[in-house]
C-alpha cells in the first residue's frame, strides 16, 4: 500500500507539471482574454472538484453541499466588493446613499450589522477562509460524532444546500435575492473589470488552484491521507485500531470547505457577481460530476474533468441547447456505470502503457489504484447501515 502511494505521487508530480504548463502557459497564449476569463471561471469550479477528490474519492464521504461553501466564499467576497461599489457618491440618487442598491430597493435604510465588518479587506479574506471552515466544522462534528455517514450524510448536506439557497433567495433585502450581488466594480480602487485585471486574476486563480492541487496531493501522501483511505475502505477497523474517526472526517470536510470557498471568492472576482444559482443543489451535484468525470481518485484528473465538462457544456448549450441535458444526464450514468475511474482511469489503462512504449520501447502495463476503487465500492455497500 505504501509503495502504491509513493508511485502515485511520482506520476502525479508529472501531472501537476503538465497541468501548470497548460493553465499558466498554453491557455493564456492560445485564447483571447474573453475566452481566458471564461476558462478562469471554469477553473474556480475545479477547486470544488479537487476538494471532492480529497473528501469523496479518498475519504468516501460524498457531500452534496459543496455549493454551500463555494457560495459562502463567493458571497463574502461579493459583500466586500459591493460595499466598495456602493460608496455614498456613486449611490447618491438612492433614498439612502451608501448602502447597496438592492437594499435601497427593498426599503432598507441602514446597513445590516453583519455587513459592517465586510468593509475591511483583511476581515473579508479571513471570513472567506474561516466562515466555511466553521460551518463545515459544525456540520462535521454533529454528523460524524453520531456516526451519520454515507448516504445519510449526502442527503443532509443536500438539504443544507437547499436551505441556504432558499434563505438567500428569500431574504432579498439582505442578500440581493435571486439576482444575487451584482455590479461589482473595484477592489481597493483597482478596477477588476479591465483586461489587465482579468489577466492578473486569471494567473492568481491558476496559481491558487495549482497550490490546492499540490496541497491535496501532499495531504493524501501523509499519514492522514492514508487514514482517510483506510476509513473509506473499512471505517470500523480504523475505529477499532484506536483512531477517532469522526475527527479525521471533520478535518477532511473542513479542508474541502476552505478549498471550495477560495474557488467561490475567485469566482466572484473574475465573473463580477455572485448569485444563489451557485449555491443550491443543482450546482452542488453538478460539481460532483466534474470530479467523477476526471476520476474521483485523481487530483489532477478533477481539474481536467471540470474543464472538459464545462467546455462541453458551453459548446452544446450554445449549439444544441436541447441536447445538452440529455448529454449531461448520459454522462452521469455513463461515468458511473462504465468508467468509475473517469479520465484518470482511462489514462492509467491506455495512456500510460502507450507513453511507456513511446519513450522506452518496453511496455509495462502497471497495476494502478483501480482495484482499490472497486474494493471500496464493494465494501461501501456492506457498511451502508453502519
Amino acid at each position, binding site marked *: 500500500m505504501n509503495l502504491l502511494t509513493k508511485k502515485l505521487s511520482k506520476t502525479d508530480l508529472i501531472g501537476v507539471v503538465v497541468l501548470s504548463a497548460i493553465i499558466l502557459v498554453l491557455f493564456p497564449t492560445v485564447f483571447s482574454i474573453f475566452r481566458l476569463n471564461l476558462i478562469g471561471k471554469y477553473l474556480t469550479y475545479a477547486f470544488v472538484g479537487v476538494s471532492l477528490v480529497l473528501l469523496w474519492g479518498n475519504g468516501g464521504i460524498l457531500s452534496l453541499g459543496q455549493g454551500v461553501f463555494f457560495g459562502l466564499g463567493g458571497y463574502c467576497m461579493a459583500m466586500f466588493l459591493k460595499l466598495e461599489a456602493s460608496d455614498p457618491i456613486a449611490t447618491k440618487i438612492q433614498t439612502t446613499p451608501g448602502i447597496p442598491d438592492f437594499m435601497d430597493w427593498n426599503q432598507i435604510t441602514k446597513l445590516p450589522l453583519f455587513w459592517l465588518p465586510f468593509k475591511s479587506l483583511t476581515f473579508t479574506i479571513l471570513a472567506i477562509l474561516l466562515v466555511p471552515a466553521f460551518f463545515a466544522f459544525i456540520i462535521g462534528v454533529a454528523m460524524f460524532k453520531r456516526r451519520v455517514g454515507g448516504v445519510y450524510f449526502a442527503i443532509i448536506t443536500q438539504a*443544507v444546500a437547499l436551505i441556504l439557497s432558499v434563505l438567500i433567495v*428569500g431574504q432579498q433585502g439582505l442578500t440581493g435575492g435571486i439576482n444575487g450581488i451584482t455590479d461589482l466594480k473595484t477592489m481597493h480602487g483597482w478596477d477588476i473589470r479591465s483586461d489587465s485585471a482579468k489577466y492578473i486574476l486569471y494567473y492568481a486563480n491558476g496559481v491558487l488552484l495549482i497550490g490546492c492541487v499540490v496541497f491535496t496531493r501532499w495531504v493524501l501522501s501523509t499519514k492522514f491521507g492514508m487514514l482517510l483511505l483506510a476509513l473509506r475502505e473499512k471505517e470500523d477497523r480504523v475505529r477499532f485500531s484506536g483512531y477517532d474517526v469522526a475527527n479525521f472526517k471533520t478535518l477532511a470536510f473542513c479542508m474541502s470547505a476552505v478549498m471550495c470557498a477560495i474557488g467561490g471568492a475567485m469566482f466572484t472576482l473574475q465573473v463580477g457577481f455572485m448569485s444563489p444559482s451557485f449555491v443550491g443543489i443543482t450546482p452542488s451535484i453538478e460539481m460532483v460530476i466534474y470530479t*467523477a468525470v476526471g476520476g474521483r481518485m485523481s487530483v489532477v484528473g478533477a481539474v481536467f474533468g471540470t474543464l472538459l465538462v464545462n467546455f462541453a457544456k458551453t459548446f452544446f448549450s450554445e449549439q444544441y441547447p436541447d441536447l445538452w441535458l440529455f448529454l449531461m444526464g448520459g*454522462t452521469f450514468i455513463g461515468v*458511473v456505470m462504465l468508467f468509475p475511474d473517469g479520465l484518470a482511469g482511462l489514462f492509467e489503462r491506455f495512456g500510460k502503457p502507450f507513453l511507456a512504449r513511446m519513450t522506452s520501447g518496453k511496455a509495462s502495463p502497471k497495476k494502478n489504484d483501480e482495484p482499490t476503487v472497486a474494493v471500496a465500492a464493494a465494501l461501501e455497500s456492506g457498511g451502508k447501515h453502519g
Partner: protein
Amino acid sequence: MSLNEIGSMVAMQGFSGLSLFTVLLLMALGLAIIFGQMGVINMAHGEFMAIGAYVVYLFSQLTQNYAPGLREVYFVPAVVAAFFVAAAVGYVVEVLLIRRLYKRPLDTLLATWGLSLAMQQFFRSFINPKEVSAELPEWLLGAFNPTPSIQVPRNGIFVMGLTILVTIGVYTLMLKSRWGVRIRATTQNRVMSSAVGINTDRVDRFTFALGCGIAGLAGAAFTTIGSTGPTSGSLYIVDTFLVVVFGGAANLIGTIASAFSIAQAQSLLEFFLTSAMAKVLTLLTIIIILMIRPQGLFTTKVRT
C-alpha cells in the same frame, strides 16, 4: 378577529397543510420502499411522479379531443394508468441501470440524478416545456362547506381518500402479504433469502417498480392540486428524502408521522412568515432533530 374566525383560519390552513401532506406522503411511501427498504437512492423519484401527472394530462387531452362525453369518468382509469406507466418505466430502469449498482449506493445517487436530468429534458422536448394542467371532471371542482366560514376543496378530499387507500394498500402489502415478507427478507439478508428459494432479482425488480408506481400515483394526485411542469417533481425530491429519513428509513408509521408533521409545520409557519422562511425553518428544524437523533423518529429494531 373573533375566536371563531381564528378557528376557521387554523382549520383552513391546516387543510392546506393536509394537501401538502398527501403529496409528500404519497411520494414518501414510494421512496420509503425504494430507499428505506432497498437502500437505493433514487434521485429521479420526482420525475416518476411527473410521469404519473403527465399520464393523467394525456388522458385528459385524449378525452377532450376524442370523447368529450367521458369527461366525468376518465379520471379514474387515468389514475390507474398513471400507476402502471410509472411502474413500467421503473421496471425498465431497474433492469438497465439500478440492478448493476446495488453495491454502490452513492453511485446510484449520481446515476439516478443523471437519469432525472435526462427525463426532465424529455418532458421538455417531447411533451411541453411549459406547465400543463389536466381538465378536471366536474365532481372534483368546487368546495364543500361544513360551516359558512370553512371551505374544504373537493379535490383535497379526493386526494386524501386516495392517499388513505394507497397507505393501507402499502401497509398490507409490506407487512401482511407473502410478497412483503419476501421483500423484507431480501433487504435484510440477500444471500440467505436466495438460499431459501426467494428469487431476489425478481423481488428487486418488482419492488422498485412498485415504488415508482406509487410515485406515479402521487403525480396523479398532484394534478388535482396544481399544474405540472418538467421540473415539478424535482421540487419535492429533497423534502421527500427528508420525510423518509426523518421518519426512520424503514418504518411506514414513521413515514406517515414525519410527512404529517413536516407538512403541517410548513403550512402553519407559512401563515406567519413568508413561504421561503417557513421552508427554511422547517428544514432547519428537521436537520437539527436529525443531528440529535440520526436514526429518525421511529426505528425498526433489526438484528443484522
